[in-house]
């Protein structure tokens, strides 16, 4: 099959395949101890994902606990100032706990409940997934331990304290680069050790099958709502979608329900750090190679010996050397454009969105906003861009103050 034919005939909803592969990406690259747990998870998820009662319970929690649907907000002033396409924000920042992460933890907590396991663990970067996990664990009375790179514990002190208040134990990880990837290594080790009573709530669309699939399915509520809201408000589909990509869960959540809408362009925005050309960034889809890490094959930041290298981003939530395998596949298919925004551009977007719209975005989401600000002026005024405003920026105030040389 030629590349062109493949583009027009891919049935996106049929992926991953039964073994968890998206083309050459995804899969299940784990040590033998975890195979049983992944089989068990896959079995439970397969039996529940089309179960009406399970879906109803999930939808109920999203409505009454998370506060969904999240609004689709027309950023009129920003659109006017940029002078091009109309920009709409999908307001995931208004969810309970302040980011899209909770959509997934609600779903996985329901699965954990079905397995009867009494303890949940999670890895976290910026702390948003850790907070979202600690939150659902508190609600269900589950013991919760969150692995967080020691460097991130320092950068995200507010979220660390939030998790503690919620009754979770935060375990700083001091190995390797002391960031998200190392937290994920440590969570995998914990899971292998405590597999009998522990459910591992992975926070993004990475990891071994079935995680990339089930996290995507739980996050796809973002795109389903956005699609319906856009049709209802404007009578048409958007022309472009923009979302930041670290592991890529908010992006896949927005993109997935639109994949068959060929008129909708999609932009995944990676963390360009000091600039992709400098090598100091976290943009594997822009500047990485396919490899194997954390249970799946995907694009990675690595050296010539296959060692994973340290990444750099002002945003802890994007500071990850890999990316969800479905994004790797969508890149190779050419369905989604993956671009990069560097630290300074993201910080500018953080400040301007706060001042122009009165909405303080997370530094992660600021990457998407910065790219939308570049894209909008190249488009017509009657065109529509939906930006996933994946989280609120309160957690980043100290980081930004620090950059400004201010002690709060």
């Amino acid at each position, binding site marked *: 099959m030629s590349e062109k034919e493949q583009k027009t005939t891919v049935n996106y909803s049929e992926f991953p395949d039964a073994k968890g592969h998206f083309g050459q990406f995804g899969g299940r*690259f784990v*040590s033998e101890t975890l*195979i049983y747990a992944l089989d068990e998870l896959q079995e439970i998820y397969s039996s529940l994902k089309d179960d009406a009662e399970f879906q109803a319970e999930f939808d109920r929690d999203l409505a009454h606990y998370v506060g969904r649907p999240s609004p689709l907000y027309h950023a009129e002033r920003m659109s006017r100032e940029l002078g091009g396409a109309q920009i709409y924000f999908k307001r995931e920042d208004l969810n309970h706990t302040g980011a899209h992460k909770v959509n997934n933890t609600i779903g996985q907590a329901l699965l954990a409940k079905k397995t009867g396991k009494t303890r949940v663990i999670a890895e976290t970067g910026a702390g948003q997934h850790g907070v979202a996990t600690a939150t659902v664990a508190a609600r269900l009375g589950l013991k919760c331990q969150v692995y967080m790179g020691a460097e991130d514990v320092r950068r995200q002190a507010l979220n660390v304290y939030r998790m503690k208040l919620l009754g979770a134990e935060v375990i700083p990880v001091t190995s*390797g680069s002391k960031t998200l990837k190392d937290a994920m290594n440590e969570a995998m080790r914990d899971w292998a*050790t405590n597999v*009998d009573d522990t459910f591992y709530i992975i926070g993004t669309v990475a990891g071994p099958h079935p995680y990339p699939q089930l996290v995507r399915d739980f996050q796809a509520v973002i795109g389903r709502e956005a699609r319906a809201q856009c049709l209802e408000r404007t009578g048409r589909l958007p022309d472009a979608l923009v979302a930041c990509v670290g592991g890529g869960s908010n992006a896949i959540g927005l993109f997935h329900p639109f994949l068959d809408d060929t008129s909708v362009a999609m932009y995944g925005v990676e963390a360009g750090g000091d600039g992709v050309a400098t090598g100091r960034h976290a943009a594997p889809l822009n500047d990485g190679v396919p*490899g194997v890490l954390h249970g799946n094959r995907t694009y990675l930041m690595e050296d*010539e010996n296959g060692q994973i290298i340290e990444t750099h981003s002002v945003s802890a939530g994007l500071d990850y050397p890999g990316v969800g395998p479905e994004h790797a596949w969508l890149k190779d298919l050419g369905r989604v454009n993956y671009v990069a925004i560097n630290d300074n551009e993201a910080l500018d977007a953080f400040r301007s969105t706060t001042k122009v719209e009165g909405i303080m975005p997370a530094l992660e989401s600021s990457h998407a906003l910065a790219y939308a600000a570049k894209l909008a002026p190249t488009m017509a005024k009657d065109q529509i861009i939906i930006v996933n405003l994946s989280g609120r920026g309160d957690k980043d105030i100290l980081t930004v103050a620090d950059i400004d040389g201010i002690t709060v």
Partner: protein
Amino acid sequence: MSRISQQFEALQARGRKALVAYIVNGDPCPEASLPTMHKMVEAGADIIELGVPFSDPMAEGPVIQLGHERALESGTSLTGTLDLVADFRKTDTTTPVILMGYANPVERMGYSRFAERAAQVGVDGLLTVDLPPEELGELKTELAERNIDNIFLLAPTTAPERARHLASNASGFLYYVSLKGVTGAGHLDVDAVKTKLDEFGALTSLPMCVGFGIKDADTATKVARLADGVVIGSVLVDAMGKHAGQSPDEIADAVGAIISDIRRGLDSL
């Protein structure tokens, strides 16, 4: 027949249990690895398992993680590990050498290039922790064509049907992970190991070695009673770390002393 299978046949003929000993190449410094390998054989190791350092060794406990970190700091890579085996083979053509590591460095080198070079330098087996049979792809034929054994882990959580599947894809021997957890963990339950080994033993004729959590001659001896051999790693890597900064010979002697002690235990069976 591979060097590994020959070794097990020879051991069985002598009624001796296999001692598989693990170090990380380049830990704590590149100069220590070759003399340590020779010392390991001299002290009674039957098979050498050479860890290939990786930045994200997900299945390792803290002790071996540190070994990987020290090795990476000393600049060691998969290429360097293959070179080390070539050096070892200049004077030892009989002791089997297995490379143990993670998929990504092998992927980066390329399956075909890796297998070709591994066969050239005299590698006998490969144990890739995060490469189960379902994900082996072309590496399977690349290794088989060159008579390099594919070693798989069996875990306490492995169901019988899957164990059969793993055994049918493996050669050389099977490596039973004695506990749920990472390397070097401290909660090995000999009775539980026996139950699983009895179950798995009925499914395959391949030799079965047990590792993860074997710390000393006493546990090694208890476990060896149930299996064809034992694998020791963390206790050796810990010694290498403690002797970092000393001469290669002193490091080799420290590792050799531990192996001799465990060998005596195994030979008392």
